[in-house]
């Protein structure tokens, strides 16, 4: 088998995808609608699901307790479960500890609550740097943490999938759960931003 020393330029990437798709279809029948169903499912995995979990945890102390004890079940309560969500652990930020998630070896993410990960999360820059120098990386992204706050970087190396629970921002007393949900960003659910 040839390898990938790239002695000659590779064919256009879209042509390679089409080639593999055709070659698979030539030997295995792909049921009508299978790929469409997969891609429709992807649309249901999004950060606003994680934002829903967070907003509810701010408004409902019993839910927060369940979330911290069994993140998988608490996410499933709201309908968020499935591939890459088999074991979800919620990481609550506190005034003392700030949590940030990475997958240094590939790009594992809790799909049901975070969605498929964004390019920056999958980049060599983020994967290489955040485990070793989290504070400069966070600072570059606009988050300056006080020196007395501990940074805990969670490397997603086995099958646990993490969700950061940011602290509720000040001045949001009286906000509805929907208003709060809309204020929660994907970056805050990964831990590279606060609210």
């Amino acid at each position, binding site marked *: *088998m*040839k*390898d*990938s*020393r*790239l002695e*000659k*330029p*590779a*064919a256009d*990437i*879209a*042509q*390679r*995808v*089409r*080639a*593999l*798709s*055709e*070659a*698979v279809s030539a*030997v*295995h029948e*792909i049921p009508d609608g*299978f*790929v469409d169903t*997969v891609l429709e499912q992807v649309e249901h995995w999004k950060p606003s699901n994680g934002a829903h979990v967070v907003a509810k945890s701010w408004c409902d102390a019993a839910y927060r307790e369940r979330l911290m004890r069994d993140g998988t079940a608490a996410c499933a309560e709201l309908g968020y479960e499935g591939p890459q969500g088999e*074991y979800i*652990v919620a990481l609550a930020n506190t005034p003392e500890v700030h949590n940030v998630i990475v997958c*240094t*070896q590939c790009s594992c993410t809790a799909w049901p609550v975070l969605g498929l990960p*964004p*390019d*920056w999360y*999958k*980049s*060599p*820059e983020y*994967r*290489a*740097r955040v*485990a*070793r*120098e989290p*504070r400069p990386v966070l600072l570059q*992204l606009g988050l300056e943490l006080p*020196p007395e*706050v*501990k*940074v*805990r*970087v*969670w*490397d997603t*190396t*086995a*099958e*646990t999938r993490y969700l950061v629970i940011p602290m509720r921002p000040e001045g949001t007393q009286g906000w509805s759960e929907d208003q709060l949900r809309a204020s929660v960003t994907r970056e805050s659910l990964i831990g*590279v931003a606060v609210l």
Partner: protein
Amino acid sequence: MDGIHDLGGMEGFGLVEIEDDEPVFHEPWEAQAFALNIVSIALLAAYNVDEYRHAIERMDPRHYLSATYYERVLTGVATLLVEKGIVNHEDLEVRAGGSFPLARAVVANAPSLGGDDARPRYAVGDTVVVRNIRPHGHTRVPRYCRGKRGEILHVAPSFTFPDDSAHGGPIRREPTYHVEFSARDLWGEDADRLDTVVVDLWETYLEDPS
């Protein structure tokens, strides 16, 4: 394998750039590449997720770093489907109208490191040391924590041991642990004295401190 994929702590990379309002897929082919992996795993049952991760790890380092995420997905899927005899490399290149780089061959099967689906050996608060293992095949223990001492923060469920299942070995489940390491133990005195890194590790990767 001590491959390019094991990026944690590597220096020399530049800024992390966040794209505003980033779409899930930038181009239709990215969605198709993602779907081809799901088709191959869920419909064809051609390989398991550990074989898939290892196929991407086996990409030439120069190709790995220059490829986007979904090009790595495509390359991993195509490599495995060629290796499993489901598609043919020359046919792919004819269809693509040019070169279709694949990952390198498996160098060695990882030896089974033992263990079984027993009750967890460790409990929260225990001190453990990461074994300084260097398998040539697939492993999920990052280089940066090998030989390091950490503390068990949480006992997670048992999951399939990837070093075996990536190489056609037994599908064997064992406990995984969230192990916390001091940043200074991992990265030296430049690291912040408060900061830590938590790594999720299978029991076989751990041993008692001597």
